[in-house]
């Protein structure tokens, strides 16, 4: 039986989004400021765990219908593929490059690095790993 935890729910509604937004910021800003795929992934996982704690396993599974275990191979695959991708340009495994793109709408002049794709793999793996471990142990009878 769940007690009436109105305050928790209300604050969670607010904080979860702030956390998610912050984690995305950490992930994107990683190349130039503290952050990156690892921390961003952990932060995202923390936000989702908070939602689980507040709303319970059933409700969150309905809202986010993702099997987090599935994220692990997807993340690893992305990371490996970015490495293999450098073969296409005749470069050694995991060579990274970057460039400036000025014609992107809204954002204007942006520097994009292939390292970001690799970091995306790290991000997804970390989210998958953390949530798999915590949910598996928490749901254990």
């Amino acid at each position, binding site marked *: 039986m769940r007690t009436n935890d109105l305050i928790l729910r209300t604050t969670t509604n607010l904080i979860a989004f702030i956390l998610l937004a912050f984690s995305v910021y950490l992930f994107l800003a990683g190349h130039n400021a503290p952050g*990156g795929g690892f921390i961003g992934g*952990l932060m995202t996982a923390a936000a989702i765990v908070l939602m689980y704690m507040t709303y319970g396993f059933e409700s969150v599974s309905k809202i986010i219908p993702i099997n987090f*275990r599935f994220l*692990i191979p997807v993340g690893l695959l992305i990371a*490996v593929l970015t490495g293999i991708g450098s073969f296409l340009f005749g470069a050694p495994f995991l060579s990274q490059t970057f460039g400036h793109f000025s014609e992107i709408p809204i954002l204007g002049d942006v520097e994009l690095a292939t*390292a970001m794709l690799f970091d995306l793999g*790290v991000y997804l793996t*970390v989210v998958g*790993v953390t949530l798999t471990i915590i949910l598996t142990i*928490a749901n254990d009878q």
Partner: protein
Amino acid sequence: MLTAVFLPLIFALLIPLLSKWKDKIHTGWFVLIVPFTVFVYLVTKTGKDFAPIRETYQWIPSLNINFDFYLDGLGLLFGLLISGIGTLVVLYSIFYLHKSEQLAHFYVYLLMFMTAMFGVVFSDNVYVLYTFWELTSLSSFLLIGFWNHRKGSRYGALKSMLITVFGGLSLLGGLILLHLVTGTTSIQAMIEQKEVIIQSPYFGWILAFVFLGAFTKSAQFPFHIWLPDAMEAPTPVSAYLHSATMVKAGIFLIARFLPIFVLSEWFMIVTSTVGIVTLCIGSYMAVRQTDLKGILAYSTISQLGMIMAMLGYGTSTAIFAAVFHILNHATFKGSLFMVAGIVDHETGTRDIRKLGGLMTLMPITATLALFGTFSMAGVPLPFLNGFYSKEMFFQASLDLSGTSSITEVLAIVIPILAVVGSIFTFVYSMYLFFGTFRGEYKEQELPKKPHEAPIGMLISPIILITGVVVIGLYAQLVNEPLLAHTYEAITGEISNKTISYWHGFIPAFQLSLLVVGVGTVLAMTRKRWSSIYNVLPGSLSLNRVYDWLVDRTEKYSMKITNTYMTGSLKTYAQLLLSAIFIISAAILFLTNGINLEATDLAPITIAELLIVGMMAFAAIATVFTNSRIAAILILGVVGYGLSILFVLYRAPDLALTQLIVETVTVALFLLAFMHLPELRKRTEPLRTRALNATIAISFGALMTIVAISSFASKWFEPISQYFLETSKSLGGGKNVVNVILVDMRGLDTLFEIAVLALAALGIYGMIKLRGNSKEAK
């Protein structure tokens, strides 16, 4: 020669194909062709104008290991013995072993052994020699254990294996040293460099190692104990391996290296002493045996001792006598083993106490035994070859002269021991013959009604005894075409020896008469003095030493293993940490690695001091708390303290990560430990706790010293400057840490996330599959 050596082994491969006919035709008939072919081939090589033949086939040229075959007189004599007696033994085994036995196994092992022996005697390359040497041990092991359902067979096989392989490995050591000293792998080339070998500092080791190899193989004292137990083998095997061929491999080895070793006085001292002691002990113990094959086993030991002693004398008479006796012993001992096998086969027992009076029932067998035993005893009759070599043995023993104090003593003692040993040889020979074939016939004690053996079984011993008589009558027949070449191969001198029956009334002949006289008296009164065996050896026995050694080795290695392999993780942790501490501390100390200079240090701020103090306090508190929850939470303090330190040391990425990881691990600890019982109050005795504390503190101290020392010893500039300079220009990012992680050293990160993935899958698997494994049970 390659064909001759490998013919038996190749034929052995075909034996399984013969199994189709095994019920109709005895497999032995097919096998018989192999040794006979080789025998004929070798016989064609003999003759007055024999010259050594050399053949080389590449095997491992880069290591100078090749099939170098060298057929000289010595190899020829042994090759003839191996192939000739091999033929006779195969013929004998056809009638001895019934078709219901596992004949395919038997003949495969036997052919394997033949190849191995040919290889040993024909090899000129020391490593090839060693390879075949071990193959003889292996095939002999298989043959002794042929009736592997018997406990005695397995015991005997294991014993012979352990002893001969021990010797074989020593021999390898000796051969490697010879190779190192001379720089060649060829035995003949080594003999040419004998001066180099003698003067090398390793000569003592070479001698000791080769001696060990030869003495274990040839059943010399004190390694003779495996031979009596090897009598559990089928009789054809005993006749072949343990009288004529394998046990002479050690003799062969000594003879082969004799030109080198004879230059050293120690060779003479050790070999002749060991040989003469073996002769006496073997003949003395043979009289005590009750098993026919037991008597023959000890007799073989004593005869091998005699040959070994003669080689040790190193004089020309002695070496010629040794060569002659190798041939003689093979003929009469092979036939005697076959006779023992016939008696066993026809009466159902080999116990000499139950046998007796078989002369009229088995006249042919008895005649063969008569010639065999009398030749073995050295009875002075013109048609027995044993007498000739025995007389030469006495002659050689009397001719010894000493130059140093040890050899002077030996020159006096050896002739006496030689006579004593020969007297006992006479006694057991007579005991063997008269005990089996004369005396009272005890019909009720025999399991079977005895009758003469089938003719097939008798052919082989008849041929061998014919050999005894022919060599006895016409010794020149084997002297010029064969023995002279063997003598030449060993000594390098042309032989001018002749074998004649009558040398005159010389001291050696007088000794022979003395042996016969005293021996006859002792043999007739054997029952009266046999109680001497209760006093000496009494309960003394080398077998007990062997059993004790094997038993103790097993027991103590078990004990030693059990002291540290306790199965307790706590003990393992203690041992590992102590070992790391002792080894690292010793190396640090010995290499002057401890460097506690305090230079180039940053100033310490109050904030750092406070945090570190708090962390140290928390760490110590973790050790002393008795509540699990408290321990987890206090450990969290250490973790958060660390992340603050990271902030202070300007590592924001690390601080962020450490903060979150610490939170997650504390949460996981709490989740996982929810299921565990409360911590018990610790009840270990004070001593264990003191030990643990000592190990922990010393290990901590070691790590501290290592950390300080490695900080104080900087050998080169760190490469971090490169990362700081190129992070923006090459990696396109200002966050150096992240650029290193994903760009410059992305491979590490790739595998770290792979580790994470494995950990997650592992946890998932452990928890989810738990139910399934229970159902599966």
